[in-house]
């Protein structure tokens, strides 16, 4: 009889420990995301947008128009690639540094979940843009990159700092508006990837990093 009671209780406590582990991993957010890397990515984007504006035939500033030469298009793709590598590289380095500082492991369960949920909409948008590029249908590329990047942020925001959600929603709205203004994609792109990154990056930096 005594053993039976002991056995029952042991079983219960095992369940308790399972519950504790489950709750801990489910609720953990990846908080090492660096705000400053957002600001830097925004600055890179603005520089890139400025360079793109210089390459495009003056004074129209219209990006990726059919009358652009293949050479112009190639330069634009080169700028975009450089921006992507620089931004991802900076974000990675600064997030690793912050994770070390606050003692969070960089490759924990929440980081993995964050990355997977961010990557699914982002990769979809990336492939979509490449297909548009191949069909020389350029005018939707700025809206598509803005909208899918925004959706990626919204999707990933469950697993990290909540501010990422608002960054994402802003991007989606900007992307949708830019569809209505074909030819002005570069402006919306600069506002979204440039100013919004700087703004939200700064907010996150002062809210969490400078404590």
């Amino acid at each position, binding site marked *: 009889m005594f053993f039976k009671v002991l056995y029952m209780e042991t079983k219960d406590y095992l369940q308790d420990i399972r519950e504790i582990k489950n*709750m801990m991993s489910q609720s953990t957010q990846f908080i090492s995301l660096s705000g400053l890397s957002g600001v830097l990515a925004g600055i890179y984007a603005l520089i890139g947008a400025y360079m793109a504006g210089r390459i495009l035939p003056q004074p129209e500033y219209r990006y990726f128009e059919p009358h652009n030469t293949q050479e112009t298009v190639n330069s634009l793709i080169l700028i975009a690639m450089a921006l992507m590598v620089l931004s991802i590289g900076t974000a990675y380095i600064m997030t690793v540094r912050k994770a070390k500082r606050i003692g969070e492991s960089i490759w924990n369960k929440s980081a993995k979940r964050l990355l997977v949920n961010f990557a699914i909409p982002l990769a979809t948008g990336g492939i979509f843009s490449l297909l548009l590029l191949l069909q020389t249908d350029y005018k939707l590329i700025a809206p598509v990159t803005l909208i899918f990047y925004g959706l990626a942020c919204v999707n990933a925001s469950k697993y990290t700092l909540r501010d990422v959600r608002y960054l994402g929603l802003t991007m989606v709205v900007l992307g949708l508006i830019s569809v209505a203004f074909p030819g002005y994609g570069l402006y919306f792109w600069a506002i979204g990837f440039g100013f919004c990154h700087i703004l939200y990056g700064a907010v996150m930096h002062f809210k969490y990093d400078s404590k």
Partner: protein
Amino acid sequence: MKDILKNINKAFDHRIRLGMMSVLMVNENADFNTLKELLGATDGNLASHIKALELEQYIHVEKQFIARKPNTQYSITAKGRKAFQEHIEALEKLIPKG
């Protein structure tokens, strides 16, 4: 047998309270809706368990306003952290090894 059970804390003897403490152990703070969502509790149910933990001084309640809407943040106290750690250690001792 009595000895082993000494550190089992009765305050954590409920799924909701256990879950709430687990969440607050690994997060700086959490608001009411986040807890509700994670624990699958109703408003009244969660509120009563929060009250119980607050009375034990295991959690700290901070009321604030975000965009004029009331928003209450909960965080774990040093006392709560210590009590919960002891509780987990006591649980571990009760589980047969292997």
